[in-house]
């Protein structure tokens, strides 16, 4: 880490500042770039923790229908910790890393709108993660009970009835992160509104910035609901208030209404940045401007608005009556938005020239993953089929496709695309491709097997569905074969992640020093991107690109040389 410290520091000194050094440099910083890197390493660290938790219980599921290593409560606890870590401490910080580091570069701003709130947001992650994991350490040492064990959406009264300090810690850990990310979301949004280069109009914004806008508007809308829900549970647990206890006049379902009002927009908060990065990468690495820029932005707006009106499709089984028809219609409307995104990405790639670099591979997987998660998701938008699949592994497969193959893969594309920009060093591309290979095969296989276990079509399952959050499957021991295959895929993915961590850390010291590793690839395309090429920035439209390359496939072969010359002129402008 010292490498980029020196780089950033040196930059500061040029301007005559004498900032603190050593650990103080990291702790006191309000520099958006340094904060972005703090976010990045937090996310990577939490990713390792959450992945390890998943590997432990996945292994136990494969070994035998009964638990072998974990207790029943320990299993529930690991599942909850895995979910909370991945959702709140991996995806959100990882996207925060790019928002922090890249937004000012994209917008031509010198800093975020509120640098101090930005720093608060970064250290909020540390605080939240510490609070969430302290009971786990305590449990290992024998001081406390198990960590939070009521699942990631922790419905009361289960949550309020669990007598463990871990339960409170789970609530507080997420609440701390929620507070810090509310501030950060406001910061990101205001930065885009206020700090934009005056020359840069709304329709000049690169797709990533647009997706950032929608993400943070949704975050600002949804996260307060989570704080409401968690706060009420905390008050009920600790101050004996009664919001959710039926026999004391509360309503257990009230929590679900509040939580899912947060919960569904939250899913879009998780996936939209990844989709934005994928759009950015697919366009540049296909050598074509984004197809249908305006319809794409409009459809993302539709998705964002629709996501606020679909929360009750998580509650079809709770005894809801006719309102389910309305929520079904809203849920289906989301297809339109994501459909246009998928269409736009395929049309961008179509007849392009795809550079199958690591960021591009992950970005293509985002589009495939979005198809999977959308097609699986249709069965949960429809109440009739939802009641069959509710709480089976089909749901587990569905949301993993959504959060991992869309959200996380997009962010991994971002890591590989921008790592050289953030650290000044290039990673090992062979190791990166190994990571891409194992991750795409491993993760898609893993979630595919989850879906198969869920709808009763896994090998040997004999039509029996695997139920979600079941620590054991004593009711159907024949599901073991399916679980073994699932776990094998999980290990394939895990080996890839190991390569990922090694690559990132090793390249930090030993990677080749570069300024723009993609320069060769993109030279002569007139498809600049402000974070690499600086401002002034004109979005690559069909007209601009055709002026630059003049021809493309239709051009006669002899004209090629001329094209190249023209290209160099364009490239020189940067």
């Amino acid at each position, binding site marked *: 880490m010292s490498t980029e410290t020196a780089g950033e520091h040196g930059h500061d000194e040029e301007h005559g500042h004498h900032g603190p050094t050593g650990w103080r440099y990291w702790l006191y910083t309000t520099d958006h770039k340094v904060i972005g890197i703090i976010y990045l390493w937090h996310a990577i660290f939490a990713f390792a923790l959450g992945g390890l938790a998943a590997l432990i219980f996945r292994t136990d599921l494969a070994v035998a229908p009964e638990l072998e290593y974990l207790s029943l409560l320990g299993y529930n606890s690991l599942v909850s910790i895995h979910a909370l870590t991945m959702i709140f401490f991996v995806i959100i910080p990882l996207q925060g890393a790019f928002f922090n580091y890249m937004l000012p570069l994209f917008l031509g701003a010198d800093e975020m709108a509120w640098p101090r709130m930005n720093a608060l947001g970064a250290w909020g992650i540390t605080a939240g993660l510490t609070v969430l994991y302290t009971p786990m350490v305590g449990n290992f040492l024998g001081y406390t009970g198990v960590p939070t064990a009521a699942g990631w959406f922790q419905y009361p009264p*289960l949550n309020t009835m669990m007598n463990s300090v871990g339960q409170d810690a789970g609530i507080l850990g997420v609440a701390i992160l929620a507070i810090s990310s509310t501030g950060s979301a406001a910061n990101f949004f205001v930065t885009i509104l206020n700090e934009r280069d005056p020359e840069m109009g709304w329709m000049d914004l690169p797709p990533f910035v647009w997706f950032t806008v929608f993400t943070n508007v949704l975050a600002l809308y949804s996260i307060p609901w989570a704080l409401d829900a968690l706060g009420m549970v905390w008050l009920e647990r600790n101050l004996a208030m009664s919001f959710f206890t039926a026999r004391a006049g509360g309503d257990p*379902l009230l929590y679900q209404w509040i939580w899912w009002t947060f919960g569904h927009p939250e899913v879009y908060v998780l996936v939209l940045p990844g989709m934005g990065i994928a759009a950015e990468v697919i366009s540049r690495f*296909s050598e074509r401007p984004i197809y249908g820029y305006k319809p794409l932005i409009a459809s993302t707006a539709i998705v964002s608005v629709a996501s606020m009106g679909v929360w009750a499709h998580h509650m079809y089984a709770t005894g809801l009556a006719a309102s389910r028809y309305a929520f079904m219609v809203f849920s289906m409307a989301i*297809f339109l938005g994501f459909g246009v995104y998928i269409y736009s990405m*395929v049309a961008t790639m179509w007849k392009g020239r795809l550079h199958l670099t690591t960021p591009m591979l992950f970005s293509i997987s985002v589009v495939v993953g979005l198809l999977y998660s959308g097609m699986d998701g249709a069965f949960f938008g429809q109440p009739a089929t939802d009641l069959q699949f509710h709480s089976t592994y089909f749901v587990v497969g569905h949301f993993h496709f959504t959060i991992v193959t869309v959200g996380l893969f997009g962010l991994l594309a971002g890591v590989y695309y921008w790592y050289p920009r953030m650290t000044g060093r290039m990673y090992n591309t062979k190791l990166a491709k190994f990571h891409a290979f194992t991750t795409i095969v491993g993760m898609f296989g893993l979630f595919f097997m989850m879906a*198969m276990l869920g709808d009763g079509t896994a090998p040997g399952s004999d039509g029996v569905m695997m139920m979600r959050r079941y620590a054991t499957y004593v009711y159907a021991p024949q599901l073991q074969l399916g679980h073994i295959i699932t776990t094998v895929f999980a290990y394939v993915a895990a080996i890839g992640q190991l390569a990922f961590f090694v690559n990132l850390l090793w390249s930090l010291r030993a990677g080749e020093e570069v300024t723009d590793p993609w320069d060769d*690839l993109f030279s002569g395309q007139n498809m600049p991107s402000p974070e690499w090429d600086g401002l002034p920035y004109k979005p690559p*439209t069909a007209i601009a690109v055709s002026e630059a390359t003049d021809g493309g496939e239709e051009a006669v072969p002899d004209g090629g040389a001329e094209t190249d010359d023209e290209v160099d002129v364009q490239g020189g402008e940067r």
Partner: protein
Amino acid sequence: MAVGDDIGPVWDERGDVFEALLWGVVFLFTFVLFIIEFGNGVIEPEEEGLFPIATIVDFKQTMFLSALIGGGLFVALIVWAVFRYSSGVRDRAARMAPGQGRFMLTMFVLAVLVIMSTTVFTGAATLAQTDEASPADAAEQLGASQQIHMEVTASQWFWRFDVEGIPSTQGERVVLPANTLVVFETTSADVIHSFAIKELGITKDAVPGQTNQAWFMVNHVEGETSVQAGGESLPADRYEVHCAELCGKGHSKMLASVYVVGQEDYHTWAEAQGGEAALESTGVGGGEHSEEEEGGHDEGGDGGMDMDEDGEMDMGSEGDDH
């Protein structure tokens, strides 16, 4: 990759073609998974005589099919693009003309809208016939002449079934009659549970301080297993009951079995329990107590053995008229 290679030979020294093929195969892998995942849903056998699942299955298969065709097409396009348009096998990108493909995009949006609204309407109709249907509607639509009531109470971590007419509360296993609309109410004594019989397409949360009503009906008994009643062995089918909402430590072991026996056998079983088979008439079709009625016999044809006999008698009398 060097600058200006765009117009170079297709084969380049770094084995890009091989790489394009490798990644094409990787994405082909996702395509095959897609086909299997959604293809399996299409060929799933029909659940005849089990309600509400039999009503849902048609709709579900249609959805799987449209996912297979619509989604599969797009994954196939992506796989093709990776094979065909990779920089290893292609020297330059095609120009994107301004406004190109606007018609295609419009058609695509229209197609999505049509599929969306079809799904919405079919889904609404399916919902109206299944979970949204009141027991009276369900009885009419399924031609169920008889119904029985059951109360399901969930607590950590076991089920309690109180079936009308049976004096004892039943736990891990509950016996119910076939050809009868089982109307049940779920509630919980502590945390939120969910009463699920996935084979019948039922999931209903058991929420403390609230009762939720739903129904199911099994129209035939294969006799895979048996239920003992007073020394007699009654052929029965077993359906697994799951808890479908995380309810704490024992969640995965909160199981129970629903045994469905024939209506005649149910009478035997109920008497052996010291109770009576409290089957009520739903007022639909012909029941045991409505033999005098004329019109209802054919509609209630799937109501049980008695009904079949009635049907034959009717046909006989019609023959006399001729």
